[in-house]
């Protein structure tokens, strides 16, 4: 699965984009976030429960329970501030 980070998530994690292989027990958005968080360090810091983040799956906003697969584009970012 391709993971993209934007804004302060990108600068905190220090990475624009990475490729991960989902473990078999990771099947929805919330589980992807928990999986990344379990890597600790900057991931734990960026994805902590106190952080307000949004997830887009294949460029659409999704909720925590949306199903995921290894072919998806998974983007994590703060609430948007354009316009």
């Amino acid at each position, binding site marked *: 699965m391709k993971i*993209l980070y*934007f*804004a*302060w998530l*990108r*600068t905190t994690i220090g990475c624009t984009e990475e490729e991960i292989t989902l473990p078999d027990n990771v099947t929805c958005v919330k589980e992807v976030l928990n999986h990344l968080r379990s890597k600790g360090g900057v991931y734990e810091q960026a994805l902590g429960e106190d952080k*307000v983040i949004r997830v*887009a799956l294949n*460029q*659409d*906003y999704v909720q925590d329970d949306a199903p995921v697969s290894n072919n998806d584009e998974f*983007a994590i*970012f*703060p*609430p*948007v*501030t*354009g*316009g």
Partner: protein
Amino acid sequence: MIRVQAENFDVGAEINALSHGNTAIGGICSFVGLVRDFQHTKEDETRVSAMTLEHYPGMTEKKLEEIEAIARDRWPLEDVLIIHRYGRMEPGENIVLVVTASAHRKAAFESAEFLMDFLKTKAPFWKLEEDDNGAGNWVDAREADEDAASKWNR
């Protein structure tokens, strides 16, 4: 029509081009958002010297197209233009432009305001402000923007 670009745009030229020759148009509403050189609070007089807009290429275009389609579905519009820039911009520069043309004044006004409210809450852009001390700060989302957007669901 939507455009996502780094280059500046000419607000006047864009509006003039959109209206040209369509005599079904009774009103054209436009809104341009600009970089403000504002001081944060009375106590903190630091001013913004520039800002950089990061975006999500691909998703940005997709969301702007969706927003345009919703507006066209909801109001009788003769034409719609959305331009949103990304990259570094200094105070006074254009950030975003929406233009709506309709037979009717109310449709033009409402749809332009709708487009701006939805851009603010749905289009994947993030502002990094540089203040005149050289520090960079990611701008927090405003609850007021969510409130403004949510009124269109009523």
